[in-house]
């Protein structure tokens, strides 16, 4: 044995490094990395579309692109960001990497299904990119009938096929996680010792499994209707367009929780680690996650308050929507209470996590405005809605995604990221985000409708502010790409547990060996048994 082999321990990255070893890998950690690379590319495409939109909106008249192109830009932005970035973002990358390690298993229950899910995802992505290159789609990400089924002359079929295929990757990932969490926990890892990230993955997986099939079949009905000119959605053919909206939102509202529940899990892990306090009200946090997932299935009608659904249905959906805020508020209060009297330190992951808590709170509270029947008539389809869901999905989910990437980067790669740059970027992202989206609340309140490339001149100042913020935000997303890639080669070598964090993933080497643990761990303590004596610096 030569000295080089001893110097760096055998790990999942060192065991074979060629195309074949990556593209046929059954290792959940490598599949997580395959997903990370894939969604980063797709995020780039979706982000470029957003940049074009914000550039075009600098002036009241659409000077950069034609109106048709504008429609295609916001559609591709929505389709790619929702299905090819946000839905898989945390579950398929960090979830894939962490779920088996956090429960103390060697891999997910079905490694081949896991690899298949990545190939399905890539296949779906290619269809969607084809739709983009062939000329784009202009229906909006919601594919509302009868526009999608009958009138649009763009590449609806290819885009819907892409989303349909990617849906199966969601289903397989969810199925794999549920089975793994149920069946493969290490000795002593009881349900109420599970990290909250695992609880969030469990709740997310249930939504993935139970909601995605509905979207898949609905898109199939839509695509067949488009192809054969007969179907159940277009009123001219005897169909019912509200049926499409009901089916679409039956998936797409829970899908919002697919995006934000994992973010809550990430925030819980980070907040508790960087304030050295156990999570306040652990059981309530676990129950709240499940409650959010369950209530999430019963509120889809709040997207249809002005679509002609009955007033009774609207009232019930409004009430149920208000109920979702209860478990969401429990989570925000408990994160805050976790910080209380904590030994708080502000490393980059913590900055992202605190940003998440603040922005998610604004996103959640403005959701209550929209859940109010009367107010929604004014605010529906305005920039208020756009700002609201970007606060939840970008301010919430994407901030937490970046926080999680930084937090577990040492574990995933075996290298430390540059802390100073990362803190700077976290703060830049927070400022850029607020500058981009807060003006949109005001624009929406003033009555600017979404999806229009032109607006009255008095709205220009808010749009310029928003576009300026978007350019800061772009830096906030490009910088980590640069310094994280830099750290792969030049970063300091990471110890097994750089944050002095609790959790099984920190008990194995960085990067972990292929089988995660050399011997199956035995869990003897509750989750988050932090004490203030140990600092996160290690």
């Amino acid at each position, binding site marked *: 044995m030569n000295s080089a082999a001893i110097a760096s321990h055998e790990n999942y990255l060192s065991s074979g490094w060629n195309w074949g070893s990556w593209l046929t890998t059954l290792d959940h950690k490598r599949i997580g990395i395959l997903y990370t690379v894939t969604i980063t590319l797709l995020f780039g495409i979706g982000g470029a579309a957003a940049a074009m939109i914000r550039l075009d909106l600098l002036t009241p008249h659409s000077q950069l692109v034609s109106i048709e192109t504008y429609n295609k830009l916001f559609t591709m932005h929505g389709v790619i960001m929702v299905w090819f970035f946000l839905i898989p973002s945390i579950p398929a990358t960090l979830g894939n990497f962490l779920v*088996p390690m956090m429960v103390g298993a060697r891999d997910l229950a079905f490694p081949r299904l896991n690899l298949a899910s990545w190939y399905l995802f890539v296949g779906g992505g290619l269809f969607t990119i084809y739709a983009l290159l062939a000329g784009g789609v202009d229906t909006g990400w919601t594919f509302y009938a009868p526009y999608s089924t009958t009138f649009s002359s763009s590449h609806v079929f290819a885009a819907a096929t892409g989303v349909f295929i990617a849906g199966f990757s969601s289903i397989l990932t969810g199925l794999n996680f549920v089975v793994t969490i149920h069946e493969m926990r290490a000795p002593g890892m009881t349900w109420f010792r599970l990290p909250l990230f695992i609880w969030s993955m469990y709740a997310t997986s249930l939504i993935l499994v139970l909601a995605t099939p509905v979207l898949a079949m609905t898109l199939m009905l839509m695509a067949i209707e488009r192809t054969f000119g007969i179907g159940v959605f277009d009123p001219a053919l*005897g169909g019912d367009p509200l049926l499409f909206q009901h*089916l679409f939102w039956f998936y797409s509202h829970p899908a919002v929780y697919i995006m934000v529940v994992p973010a809550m899990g990430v925030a819980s892990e980070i907040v508790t680690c960087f304030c050295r306090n156990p999570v306040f009200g652990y059981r309530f946090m676990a129950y709240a996650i499940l409650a959010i997932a369950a209530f999430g299935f019963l509120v889809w009608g709040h997207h249809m308050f002005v679509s002609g659904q009955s007033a009774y249905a609207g009232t019930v959906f409004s009430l149920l929507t208000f109920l979702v805020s209860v478990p969401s508020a429990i989570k925000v209060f408990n994160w805050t209470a976790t910080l209380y009297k904590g030994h708080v330190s502000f490393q980059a992951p913590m900055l992202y996590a605190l940003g998440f808590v603040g922005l998610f709170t604004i996103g959640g509270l403005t959701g209550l405005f929209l859940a109010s029947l009367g107010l929604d008539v004014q605010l529906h389809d305005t920039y208020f809605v756009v700002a609201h869901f970007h606060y939840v999905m970008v301010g919430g989910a994407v901030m937490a995604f970046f926080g999680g990437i930084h937090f577990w980067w040492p574990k995933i790669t075996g290298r430390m990221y540059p802390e100073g740059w990362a803190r700077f970027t976290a703060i830049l992202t927070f400022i850029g985000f607020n500058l981009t989206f807060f003006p949109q609340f005001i624009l929406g309140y003033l009555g600017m409708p979404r999806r229009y490339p032109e607006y009255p001149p008095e709205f220009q100042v808010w749009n310029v502010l928003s576009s300026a913020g978007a350019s800061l935000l772009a830096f906030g997303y490009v910088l980590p790409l640069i310094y994280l890639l830099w750290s792969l080669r030049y970063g300091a070598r990471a110890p097994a547990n750089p944050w002095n964090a609790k959790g099984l993933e920190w008990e194995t080497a960085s990067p972990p060996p292929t089988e995660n643990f050399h011997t199956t761990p035995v869990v003897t303590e509750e989750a988050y048994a932090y004490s203030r004596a140990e600092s996160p610096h290690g």
Partner: protein
Amino acid sequence: MANGDASVAAQFDDAEQQRTASNLGIWIFLATEILFFGVLFAAYAITRVRFPEAFAAGSRLTNLPLAGTNTAVLVTSSLTMALGVHAARRGARRALVGWLGLTVALGCAFLAIKAVEYRFDYLEHLVPSLDFRYAGPQADQVELFFYLYFFITGVHALHVLIGIGCLATIAVMASRNAFSAAYFTPVDVTGLYWHLVDVIWLFVFPILYLISRS
């Protein structure tokens, strides 16, 4: 490898963990299938509530003798499947291969009868969009019924086809002695899928063929 047993995958501690994981996995998958078909049942329900007479008229044009025969064929195939799982549990290899082969044959018979039925539908000009002729009132709505008829039975037939492929695969595996009384999870899991496809047909059959047959 943490375990010495060749039939236990590396990520599992023992055969029991692998068995319960596979069982939970297939039950979750069956739940997704129910939601998948649930969309079609919802679309059917909404449309039928709006056009009850047209749906009754359309239903009377479907081929009840063939569909009735098919129902019997599929239910029988569920019986042979259950007997196959029973044989697997006893470790009776030849009986297992026999029952699986019979189940595949019945599945193929179902598809063959369905194909004949589609041909009759075509000859009677009942194919929406391509060749649909109907002289009575509410012709467009009757066409909508046949659209759902073809869609639902088509998606179901696709599931039967996939089931036949899985059953044929495990029949070959069984003939090569891949299973024993201690390990027959693939048989069990495929059996559950096959039963679900059967159960879905038991809902599809009355709502398409038996609306108004008195």
